[in-house]
């Protein structure tokens, strides 16, 4: 399924409720790919929004979430010479300060790893079926988070059609 990768273990996708460990995941990437020159990663964390937020409730579309992440990873491997990549996205209740998403990309060259990680995050935000709802520290439930126009603009930079 992945264009430039023969080895399935070079790609790891997980949609899960439990937290992840960037150290363990980085070691895994290192163990499955050879001739790596750079490993870029990004951890998305639940922001406190100046102390008002207590948690985010993350809803997802089971099946389509994994499928869309695989599709986006496929495009990423077609575009950059990656050796391995990992995408982990959590769902359920995520308290402030906890991890939401992890991206790791490994390549022979630094720029490819950086750009691929940036691209993956842009497309996860606009194409992966997840939705966030706010929970406030006063116990009330907030609104569903509105999609930011800047996320669509960020994704549009990469010149891939909708």
């Amino acid at each position, binding site marked *: 399924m992945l264009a430039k990768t023969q080895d399935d273990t070079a790609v790891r996708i997980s949609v899960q409720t439990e937290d992840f460990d960037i150290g363990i995941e980085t070691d895994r990437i290192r163990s499955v790919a050879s001739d790596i020159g750079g490993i870029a990663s990004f951890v*998305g964390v639940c922001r406190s929004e100046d102390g008002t937020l207590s948690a985010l409730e*993350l*809803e*997802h*579309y089971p*099946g*389509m*979430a994994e*499928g*869309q992440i695989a599709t986006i990873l496929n495009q990423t491997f077609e575009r950059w010479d990656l050796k391995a990549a990992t995408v982990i*996205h959590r769902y359920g209740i995520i308290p402030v300060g906890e991890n*939401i*998403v992890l991206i790791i990309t490994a390549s022979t060259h630094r720029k490819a790893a950086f750009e691929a990680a940036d691209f993956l*995050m842009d497309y*996860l*935000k*606009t*194409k*992966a*079926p*997840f*939705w*966030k*709802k706010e929970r406030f520290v006063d116990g009330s439930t907030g609104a*569903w*988070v*509105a*999609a930011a126009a800047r*996320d669509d603009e960020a994704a549009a930079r990469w010149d891939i059609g*909708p």
Partner: protein
Amino acid sequence: MSEVTVKYFAWLRERVGVPEEQITLPHADMTIADLIAHLSERGENYAYAFADQTIVRAAIDQMHADHADRIEDAREIALFPPMTGG
């Protein structure tokens, strides 16, 4: 007349009141836009959920779709607001 599973997510799910349901398509050759128009007539909750159709996103068999896309023999349609993952 064929049946499809329609799934709703986030505030669309909350407004409709159910996470998914079986819908019998009233005629063949319907688009996503036709399905939304059909659902909007099912009651106040649906009319409220689909009041602003421009922000409703859709998937046909778990692939992103446009409102103009035909449902054809799809088994699962999903309707949801713009995604906010990542």
